[in-house]
């Protein structure tokens, strides 16, 4: 007596009908068109609105913010973060050059009107040492004589004090806070 192995079920029959309807709908062709339209809409929405006006994706190059942010890491600059408030000390911000296509990523250590100095790597604001809990390593650099900031100026520096540019920036150069 010959025995026959039962034939493998057709791919469609492997899934229950309700699952098929939930995933690809009753009319797969129409579902595909809808999915395509949705994908195009999402692409346009994110590329030309979200990633242009709300959050800017940035790729870090260099070690200025190491070890807080790593070289070649991807982060986001939230453009609306200072819409209703002002930048605060300790915030990591994106600083534009001529525009937001190329930005510097630095931490705010000095607020408008303050006098900022560095002594053997320690931050001195208005003559008093300021704790910097965000620093993972203490370094003996930099050393900087007191600098008086203007009414609209912030002092910024990278977390990698041995290898970071620093300086005063105007408020209008701050694009937003670095998030994620």
């Amino acid at each position, binding site marked *: 007596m010959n025995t026959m192995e039962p034939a493998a079920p057709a791919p469609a029959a492997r899934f229950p009908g309700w699952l098929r309807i939930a995933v690809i709908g009753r009319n797969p062709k129409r579902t595909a068109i809808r999915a395509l339209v949705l994908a195009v809409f999402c692409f346009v929405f994110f590329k030309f609105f979200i990633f242009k006006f709300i959050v800017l994706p940035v790729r870090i190059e260099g070690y200025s913010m190491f070890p807080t942010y790593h070289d070649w890491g991807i982060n986001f600059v939230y453009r609306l973060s200072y819409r209703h408030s002002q930048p605060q000390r300790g915030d990591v911000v994106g600083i534009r050059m001529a525009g937001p296509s190329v930005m510097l990523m630095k931490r705010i250590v000095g607020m408008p009107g303050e006098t900022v100095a560095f002594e053997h790597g320690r931050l001195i604001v208005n003559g008093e040492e300021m704790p910097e809990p965000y620093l993972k390593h203490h370094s003996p650099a930099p050393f900087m*004589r007191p600098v008086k900031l203007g009414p609209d100026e912030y002092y910024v520096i990278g977390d990698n004090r041995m290898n970071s540019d*620093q300086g005063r920036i105007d408020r209008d150069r701050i694009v937003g806070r670095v998030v994620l």
Partner: protein
Amino acid sequence: MKRAIQIVVALALVGLAVWGWTALHPSTETIIRSRLNDLAKTLSFKSGSGALAQAYNAQKAAEFFTQDVEVDVNLTGFEPISIQGRDEVMGIAMKSRSHLTSLKVEFPDMNVTVDPGGQSAKVNLTGKAIVPGERDISAQEFNFKLKKVDGKWLIYQIETVRTLSFLAADAGICRI
């Protein structure tokens, strides 16, 4: 349905007309942007380009500048330098080419301000230089000043802009 199609077609025609008009009658800002993008393309070069091609490109790049162009470079950690004249600028450009196998220059952000007379303009831009094959990019902010000479926009002054206004000498910084 027929009405909707008519509206879509009418909107498309209006869009096409607007695009056609702007393409045929570009604004001064658009002309300057386009000219600077051309300059970026001319300054870029690929590996394997011969000496003749490089000399041709350098000559072509020279056409973007006035004869008495002035370039002031003031970068943190370096002595400020000033370069006078188109020939000197081109000489330095040629020399830098010999040190690199290839280079891609871009001006991703340009803020163009045309003077009221329409004969001169100031452009604040970011210059980005990428050496293909290397990960790091070099970026610097510049102010370009241009003027219209015989109908062409030529650069007569370039100065670097310090994004972080830090004066090493004034602040007495030292790095250990």
